[in-house]
């Protein structure tokens, strides 16, 4: 039974992440008055990429990086309480572990970028790292806020803290900050700076092709779904119905709503410059610090 919950986690995330990506693409197309690709296009993309030739610059790190990225995000999704239900692995990690494992995913992207020897990839890596440093605290503080509310760093208590202890001004502020940082988490406009197709040609991924690129793409899609899921779980505890399957259903509904928001914001904004983005992130960090402070004083 315990294993089954983990399997459900993996199946839901791995199975539906490309679908949400497809929905985002479709919504982008709608905003741009286009027909857009079919919603299942990301699945086709992945399958096609998996069948292509593997081009490498000839070092191990390059091949290892996409696998590490994929593995790190899969590790995280195995731990999370999908359907508001804790599984057997959840108790073995606390939020600091989750933050660090998520970071490992970002590090893998950097490793891949650096080992691809390409100037653009390096520029992309430099930007990706800056983004990571500056938005990870927002994620951290969201979880820390939960931890402070629940008086414990365990994943379960921290994720469910809002549901257990109720909303407050701190939570409300953190909710807003999380939404503002969401685009940066999932790497969409205006914060797709590290990939910036028009300047540095997909940055870290420029040298990637075939199955390796597929893994990175899959990683990005799952990451995107994970952050939407995180938002839904932490800030929308009212979706809890009491039944496991119904919970998964309502959570997926919540994720869909977040995904719609992501695509609307993404399609109506130009990309920022890195130094503008950094200033923006700094504001976010200060705001989330305020939110944590408010939470500590029970406001």
């Amino acid at each position, binding site marked *: 039974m315990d294993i089954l919950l983990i399997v459900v986690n993996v199946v839901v995330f791995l199975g539906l992440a490309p679908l949400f990506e497809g929905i985002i693409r479709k919504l982008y197309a709608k905003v741009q008055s286009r027909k857009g690709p079919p919603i299942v296009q990301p699945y086709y993309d992945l399958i096609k990429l998996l*069948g*292509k*030739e*593997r*081009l*490498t*610059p*000839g*070092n191990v790190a*390059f091949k290892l990086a996409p696998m*590490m990225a*994929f*593995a790190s995000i*899969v590790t995280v999704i195995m731990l999370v309480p999908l359907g508001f239900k804790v599984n057997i*692995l959840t108790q*073995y*990690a*606390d939020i*600091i*572990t989750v933050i*660090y494992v998520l*970071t*490992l995913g970002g*590090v893998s992207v*950097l*490793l891949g970028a*650096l*080992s*691809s*020897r*390409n*100037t*653009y990839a390096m520029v992309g*890596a*430099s930007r990706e*790292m*800056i983004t*990571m*440093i500056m938005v990870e*605290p927002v994620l*951290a*503080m969201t979880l*820390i806020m939960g*931890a*402070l509310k629940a*008086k*414990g*760093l365990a994943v379960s*208590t921290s994720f469910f803290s809002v549901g257990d202890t109720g909303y407050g001004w701190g939570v409300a502020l953190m909710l807003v900050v999380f939404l503002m940082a969401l685009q940066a988490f999932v790497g969409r406009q205006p914060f797709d700076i590290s990939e910036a197709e028009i300047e540095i040609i997909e940055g870290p991924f420029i*040298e990637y092709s*075939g*199955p390796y690129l597929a893994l990175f793409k899959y990683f990005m899609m799952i990451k995107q779904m994970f952050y939407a899921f995180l938002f839904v779980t932490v800030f929308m505890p009212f979706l809890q119905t009491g039944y496991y399957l119904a919970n998964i259903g309502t959570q997926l509904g919540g994720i869909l709503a977040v995904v719609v928001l992501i695509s609307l914001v993404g399609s109506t904004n130009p990309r920022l410059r*890195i*130094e503008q983005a*950094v*200033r923006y992130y700094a504001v976010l*960090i200060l705001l989330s*610090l305020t939110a*944590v402070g408010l939470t*500590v004083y029970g406001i």
Partner: protein
Amino acid sequence: MNSNLYGSLLLSMGILVLSAVIVPFFSEKRKLAGWLNFAFTAVAGFILLNISYSVIFERSLNTELWTIAGFLPVYLLLDSFAGFFLAIIAVMSIMSAFYSIDYMEHYHDYSLKSYYVNYPIFIAGMVAIITVDDLTTGFTVAWQMMTIASYFLVKFEYKKPENVKSANKYLVLMEIAWLLILVGAFVAGSGLGDSIHAVTRSLGASTGVIPFIVYALIFLGFGFKAAIFPFGQMWLPDAHSIAPSPISALLSGVMIKTGVYGIIRTFFWMIPHNETFHFSGSLWGAIIAVFGVVTLFIGTVQSMKQSNSKRLLAFSSIGQVGYIIFGIGAAVFMFNSNSHYLKLLALIAIIGAVYHVLNHAVFKGLLFLTSGSVLFATDSKDLNKLGGLIKYMPVTAIIAGIASLSISGVPPFSGFASKWTLISTSLLAGNEVFFLVIFGIIALFTSAITLSCYVKFFGMTFTSAGTEWTVDKQVKEVGAGMLLPKFILAALCIVQGVIPFFYFNTIIAVFQNSGGSMLSAAFRNMEIDKYVFNTAMGVTVEVPGLSSAASMAVPVVVLVIFAIALCVALLLTRSGGNTERQAETWLCGYQTLNNRNRYMDSSMFAALKAMFGWTGGNVKK
């Protein structure tokens, strides 16, 4: 038994001094001198390890008065806390000595005489400063042994004038630190050669601002040594980056920890407990924690700006010491509060701090040895020039990767376990002490910056596109003599990360067995075993007042899940049944990859560097 251990301590120091006398005569035969030096160091080191095993797991000793060299009466103390540091010194000096055998070939136009005179003296000095139990005579001897020997080691490449200048600066600052501590001791009412115990007693009798002055002076003195902000920035990067790499490994890995040792001793052992004396623990805890947080943040940010690999590592040492100091500060603060729950967290915080001392010694030593290997193979420590070495030095590259992940605190490597301890205690304390949450968040944020440093360090050295090494000269993997110590240290990195509970238990034992302080009393009385559990060799903390399983770090489980996921990923890449081919780097079609269009290290993280421009950081080539 007592006398035996003290005797063997003196024996080990004697062996080291003997080495300093004998080995230089063979300095013309470089390899032989190296092997001899290693042999002496190893013998002394194993004696020290034996001592530390005894004092940690069997029985701590009390202070004893010994007369050294016939005329100098000195109080020595071998308790388990000293034993723990002795073990670190022993392991690191053996590794470093073995590494030196091959590495010193790099300096073929320098005589190795001074190196082999000073190396054992330096180690003996560090051993001495851990074990002497006064702040005046014995302390002075130990401090000067350590300082002057390390001064000559730092100055090893004396033909470069800027090195001599940096070394001189180092010497002057260390003497100032010594003076500060000495004055502190005298203000506290210590006579020449009085044991700490006596000093504490006379301090307990003092009133008014005297205790503040004493603590401030001693904290500053050891702060200089431990390289806290802003004192560390004055000497550490210059000294550590110019010393030969095995020495840098010792300086960063071990020597600055003697400062940490002094601070811990001061604020947990040198606290008088009588009715008249009141130690303002929260104030001192807050001060130390602030120093720690500032140090860890500034040090790490400055480290990120460096383009010289050894300077990067040196600045990063400042940052990592910041974590330790922060942990100590948080522990002092919480320990002196009235809440039972905070006191428990204080114990965990101090475990974290000491654990980080161990971890940092291992991975920073390892990193310095790695950058030494790179320097040996390529003759460059400029990250703007290095690059692409993973192809030529794969083993060193993998080891450097492990060390970098460790210092960045990525599970399941060693840095994670200790940083996790420090950050989680400060966050858990947050419900009562808000500023510790802020500090914890800063520490977490800084840990991301650490990551960026080491992504840069590893990326720009081993991956990325470098000078086409094969054009000028053949870059080869360094020999087994330089790989072996790195292997051992890298294995330690992993072990210390994967089974943190073992180290927790050890450190708890260390504190429980070292008598004479409120801390060890607390460790014995508060039954910490009830709150810290073993979960698959990971650590779970359950503190009353918090929700069940308040925090846990179980690297083994994470490791297993990760490994399974990695296998799935590998299967996925092979699922298409496709072939693999090597391809050229694509740069838009007109230019091909060359030295001029490779992205340089100085360009990395430009926006972030600009944002943190106010932190300074003395960037040099």
